[in-house]
């Protein structure tokens, strides 16, 4: 029971973090001062185009300001700072008030409710996911909502067990590492570096979920032969690169209107190796830019896709004696709960900063407003700045 000596309240620290992010962004010219002074009414988004699509990118394993937006961290996020934020509406404080485990936090993002499921069990979310809301309300086929998930523990993320939704209404789930393992079955390989799973608890290997894509579907749905898949994998450095590769394949072949990609390389921080954590941040920064570039290049997506980028939560502060700095997210301290979100796309104001606190559970209803479907069980609120 170590005291942290951090007596400040969550709102006060969140405001401070928010202010710092705004100043950091100004310092590198990532946003204009004019945009920063705009009031809420003028920040309200313009009407989105028809045929709207949405791509959500989350970091499972948040990165702290010290390694990202603070002056000494900016070298790690050149793409976010100089390419994406100038085109984005940036929310400086997205607060997660739920359980700080990656699976349960991602489930909360997807449902708009702070889920309480066991983070390390193969369980579906308790509340309907955006995928179910979307498909049921708009009568969309199964091929129109997909999740590319980082860890094998995310195999149930696409579909809840809610009695009004659930069975068959969710998103397809691609677990790239599981696919690669299956593709490599029995063969000696040099691809083990792409198979690192769940840095927080490497002891967990869940059973397959019903909506998860299987190896035989690789060729049928993604038009990707096992040999092509494994050959390309050999050119990749990390599990997240494999995820983005498959996400791009999905975009090309199925062009889902709701695509959710969760990156996870940053979470190598749990091993305590700071240098690997920094490498993970730099890779995530580059991959976010690549995803945005892919959106601009794909005819099905260009000009009609909104992208959301946000960490699921932060990491422990150096100053909290209950934690061990960057390594974990166990203390529940304000910094580990306060993160950011950026939104890019048609109808979204560029170079704008929103300082008011929003919650991570606001994402699901915001997606609902954007794509025109109700999210009646979600506890969050749509963000007027982007819808």
């Amino acid at each position: 029971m170590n005291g942290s000596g951090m007596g400040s309240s969550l709102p006060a620290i969140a405001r401070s973090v928010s202010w710092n992010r705004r100043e950091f962004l100004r310092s590198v010219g990532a946003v204009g001062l004019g945009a920063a002074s705009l009031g809420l009414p003028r920040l309200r988004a313009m009407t989105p185009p028809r045929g709207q699509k949405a791509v959500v990118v989350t970091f499972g394993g948040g990165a702290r300001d010290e390694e990202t937006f603070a002056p000494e961290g900016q070298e790690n996020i050149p793409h976010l700072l100089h390419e994406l934020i100038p085109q984005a509406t940036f929310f400086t404080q997205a607060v997660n008030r739920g359980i700080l485990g990656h699976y349960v936090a991602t489930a909360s993002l997807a449902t708009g409710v702070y889920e309480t499921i066991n983070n390390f069990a193969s369980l579906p979310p308790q509340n309907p996911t955006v995928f179910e809301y979307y498909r049921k309300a708009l009568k969309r086929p199964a091929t129109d909502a997909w999740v590319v998930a980082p860890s094998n523990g995310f195999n149930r993320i696409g579909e809840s067990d809610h009695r009004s939704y659930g069975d068959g209404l969710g998103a397809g789930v691609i677990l790239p590492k599981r696919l690669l393992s299956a593709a490599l079955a029995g063969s000696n390989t040099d691809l083990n570096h792409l198979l690192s799973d769940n840095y927080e608890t490497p002891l967990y290997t869940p059973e397959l979920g019903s909506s998860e894509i299987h190896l035989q579907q690789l060729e049928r749905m993604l038009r990707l032969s096992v040999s092509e898949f494994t050959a390309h994998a050999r050119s990749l450095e990390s599990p997240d690169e494999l995820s983005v590769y498959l996400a791009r394949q999905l975009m090309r072949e199925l062009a889902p209107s709701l695509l959710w990609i969760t990156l996870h390389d940053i979470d190598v921080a749990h091993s305590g190796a700071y240098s690997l954590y920094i490498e993970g941040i730099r890779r995530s920064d580059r991959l976010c830019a690549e995803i945005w570039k892919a959106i601009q290049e794909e005819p099905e997506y260009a000009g009609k896709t909104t992208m959301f980028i946000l960490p699921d939560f932060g990491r422990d502060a150096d100053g909290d004696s209950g934690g061990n700095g960057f390594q974990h997210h166990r203390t529940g301290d304000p910094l580990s709960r306060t993160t950011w979100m950026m939104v890019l796309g048609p109808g979204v104001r560029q170079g704008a900063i929103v300082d008011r606190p929003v919650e991570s559970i606001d994402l699901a209803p915001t997606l609902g407003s954007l794509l025109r479907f109700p999210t009646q069980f979600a506890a969050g609120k749509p963000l007027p700045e982007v819808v």
Partner: protein
Amino acid sequence: MMPSELKPDHFKGYPPQGRDLAIRHLALLRLLPLAFLPILLREVIDYDWKFPAERTDLDNQFAYLNSLNSDQLNAAMTSFARFAPPRQFEKSDMVNQPGEFEQRLTAWLWSTRQMDAFQTAAQDYAEKLRTASLEVPLPLRRLSIVVVGQGVEQSSYPLFRKLKPLGVHFTKVVPENGMSLLRQGVTARAQSHPLSFGHWYIDGGPRFEGAWDAVTCISYAELEPMRSALLHRMRASIQSGGMGPETLRTMLLEMQPHELGATEPDPILSRFQVRVLTEGSGTQIYSTSFAQWAAREALRRAQPVTLLVRFAPRQRERSMDELLSNTKSGAETEVDPEGSLIDADIGGYYTWMNQQRLSGADESAFLIWFEDRNEAVAIGPSMPRGTSSSSSMNLGQILALMS
């Protein structure tokens, strides 16, 4: 069982000193809330293997609680008493398995979104305890030394960024015999002020040559057989399946030194070694994580007046499966000196922070050195903050300046 139902017999499974402690304070234990008691019992059950500083802290905690009258005790415990775990918690064996109970309690607090309130309660209590405890003067100024960068050929990494503003940046350190001079400095302190577990040397590689009389030593290389045994157990658990990660974590936390083939004759140090390997994340696979976490735990638990931590190159990143299976021998393992330097740089900063959490922080001193190079930072009352020195000095001379 509720706290009020505790009887002396319930503690018969405790080690002797822990049992005596519990029975001596049984009347108090019966008055404590269910959300507080197991956390205290987790300390009591380990009393026999605690460092002297930890025993003093626990004794002080009991003295503080016993000094309160009924109303004061109720007031001190109110913030814990309002957490009411579900009835099934009462069936748990919180006396003999307080760690498992604590894990369940933690999961329940998270799932019911009460963790923040609980942590606030814990912080308030810790502050009251700290205020009530008398600070005993240290026999000598606390000193931590961190050595980083072993094996690095070239690096453009901006070292010591967080520490430079806090002290003097030495740019012309004479590196010859650096480790020998540090060993001499540490052993001299240990011999002039012999203290049980008061002087430590932790190495992320093999132990540096020479005598380390009166110094508690722990090295990554010497723990290789224990690490291998632990990785084998973890691997077997993964392959057998059937156990959730929380059960496996409990299994690791309950692991005993003999189960990992520990050879350290001192039972307290042997336990500490096991705890570093089973509680620390990444300590089993990366020497840099081991060195940082061992230093953190040594400072937090043993509260030494002298600590020397030397980081060594860790193995290069591989998949978690490969790392856990540990199929490559030490000689085959490829290392990553440049990455390790970056790991050690933040590890040094964390070591300074952890030292500053201990008593006598205003007077404490800290030195970090880029091994075999000319660069070091020294922090302490006699070291002007945010300054640099181009004086040519060896490490013995710098230590003398700091004392």
